[in-house]
């Protein structure tokens, strides 16, 4: 924080001042988040050492308990990087849990058939939203808001009651563990890490990723450069819809039930994780790895509150809000400097 407060007085980027170089570095927000994560982890270690906070499994649990959030946040990273916003994330997750539970329990379909169907529905929803946003030039905010209503409504149309999943193959999949020697990871956590790796490759090493950055940086310039802007925009929302559906599947595995109220407001967590991870909300700048740290920081807040015991769960929301605020101000300081 002390570095960022210097922003206005920091010399021009031409000078070789170290502070200025640091501030000009696009990786700074990610580094700040990573440092914050480490600091919180160390603080947790020193405070709850006697309660087993140092166990490797506590660290791995961060991935197990937040795998679905990581996947959703990766999808949101694509959208935000392109300068848009997706409010339908939480609803799509909720819908996927409902859809999966309904097909598996009530219709008796095997889970392996249901998974591709759920993913296809999520991707289709994202595609339609992207299509409307691009072709009719309606603000993403309002289109995805309609998506939020639609998918939450569809949840309730399927069933008003929650559906517990008792299917044997689902529970065996949910309980499957990959041993890492010092601890274990669940299927959900592994899928989340794979998604992260794929997203990292796509965003940083493929033409599609460059286009996402270009559109988020300046849509007009990207258009004038002749980039296939429409396709990219639609693709970004399709990716987000797909990721939300995948997150919904992981959430279903994690919680083993479908409920019309599952994941209400999770789009806020996903957006918060992306912002805390250092992606500029105006688009065009950020790293998907930052999103990982954003999710880990949010997860760590939750575990610290659990370890503290006396703190109530609503402190999670307050802490998230405070962090969100701090990181938005850091971003603001950085962009203000670039303009100057």
């Amino acid at each position, binding site marked *: 924080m002390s570095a960022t407060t210097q922003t206005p007085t920091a010399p021009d980027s031409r000078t070789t001042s170290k502070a200025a170089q640091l501030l000009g570095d696009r990786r700074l927000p990610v580094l700040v988040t990573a440092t914050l994560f480490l600091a919180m982890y160390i603080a947790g270690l020193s405070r709850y050492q006697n309660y087993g906070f140092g166990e490797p499994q506590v660290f791995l649990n961060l991935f197990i308990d937040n795998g679905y959030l990581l996947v959703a946040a990766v999808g949101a990273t694509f959208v935000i990087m392109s300068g848009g*916003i997706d409010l339908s994330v939480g609803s799509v997750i909720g819908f996927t849990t409902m859809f999966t539970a309904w097909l598996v329990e009530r219709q008796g379909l095997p889970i392996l058939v249901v998974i591709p169907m759920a993913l296809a529905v999520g991707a289709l929803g994202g595609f339609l939203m992207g299509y*409307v946003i691009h*072709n*009719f*030039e*309606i*603000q993403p*905010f*309002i*289109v995805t*808001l*309609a*998506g*939020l*209503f*639609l998918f*939450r*409504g*569809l949840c*309730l*149309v399927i069933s*008003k009651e929650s559906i517990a999943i008792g299917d044997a193959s689902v529970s065996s999949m949910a309980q499957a563990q990959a041993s890492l020697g010092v601890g274990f990871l669940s299927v959900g956590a592994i899928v989340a890490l794979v998604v992260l790796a794929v997203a990292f490759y796509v965003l940083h090493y493929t033409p599609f990723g460059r286009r996402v950055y270009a559109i988020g940086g300046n849509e007009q310039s990207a258009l004038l450069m002749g980039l296939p802007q429409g396709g990219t925009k639609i693709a970004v929302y399709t990716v987000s819809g797909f990721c939300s559906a995948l997150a919904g599947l992981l959430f279903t595995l994690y919680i083993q039930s479908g409920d*019309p109220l599952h994941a209400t407001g999770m789009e*806020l967590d996903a*957006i*918060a994780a992306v*912002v805390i991870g250092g992606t500029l*909300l*105006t688009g065009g700048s950020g790293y998907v790895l930052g999103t990982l740290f954003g999710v880990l920081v949010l997860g760590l807040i939750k575990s610290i509150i659990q370890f503290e015991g006396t703190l*109530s*769960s*609503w*402190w*999670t*929301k*307050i802490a*998230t*809000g*405070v962090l*969100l*605020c701090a990181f*938005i*101000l850091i971003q*603001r300081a950085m962009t*203000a400097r670039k303009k100057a």
Partner: protein
Amino acid sequence: MTTTSRWRALTHHHLFWPVAVLVVLLLVNVPFTPDFFSIRMTDGHLYGSLVSIVLFGSPLILVAVGMTLVIATGGIDLSVGAVVAITGALTCSYISDQADQNALSAVFLAMGVGLVAAVVCGLWNGFLVARMGIQPIIATLIIMVAGRGVAQLITDGKIITINSEPYKLIGGGYWLTLPFSIFVVAAVVAVTVALTRRTALGLLVESVGGNAEASRLVGIRSLRIKIMVYVFCALCAGIAGLMISSNTSAADGNNAGLWIELDAILAVVIGGTSLLGGRFSIGGTVIGALVIQTLTTTIYTIGVPTQTNLVFKAAVVIIVCLLQSPKFRAKVFGAKFGSKSGATGGGTSPATPAKTATTPEAAPKMEVS
């Protein structure tokens, strides 16, 4: 000829389509409940579907009116739901601490405390948006996330119930045979309309929404106007919070005002205020809010399962937005534009000239200021 020109003038009016939707929605109810429009007198109070639509819709109208001004400046306020929760929580927890919950002074003080908290939230939003230059969606997201936590902190995670007669009046009481909240809403709407349309304030708000920087160069204090609208929006949300908590005599940090920000934005959009800012219509917003409440009531009365409510809402958002999109209109109604006949189009084709007529209207307004 005169009838067609009158018809055209009518359909050109910016409130025509919201009112038409409202009337159609109301008429849909009649075959299902024949006495839908009847209002009867019981115990000196008026009862009837129309009264309850206004009664249950009043918090939404309040929030949406505040939201209209924020959207008119090109912003958006996502934090209203959290402000509703905070205000209700503070007021109820203050009243529940009193020995005599019916004491007027205590109730007024409690309401004052709640509204001050709402104003503080509005100031914070305005500060972030105007002074720090943060995107409104993101700036107000902070209170949207943290605010519910704060509300639960105030109520200690419980639902505080109170038993205060004077406080009950605001959201659930009757005055002059009508629900008291209708008078509150009418007062707020009247003051807002007077302030924005009888003084230059409305023009200034539209000018800031049209182009904040140009307005500043012309000599309008853009920043101050922006902060003001966020404070006003939060204040409206605060009053709505009082109403909701008073109606149920309870403060629920989790569920009070949940999703009201989305309904409010929807009401504003249905009312014909552009999300891009630069022009607004308070009357349209009030009708938009009534449309949403009527939609909910209609879904109940015609026997459609209540859970499809959200799907209906989604359909309404999509249709309204598509109709507002110039590109969509050009693609779908493009062929009818040239012929100007519009006779066969019935309901849809007059929409095209009506909507396009409002767009050039906005441009000179911005230049005036």
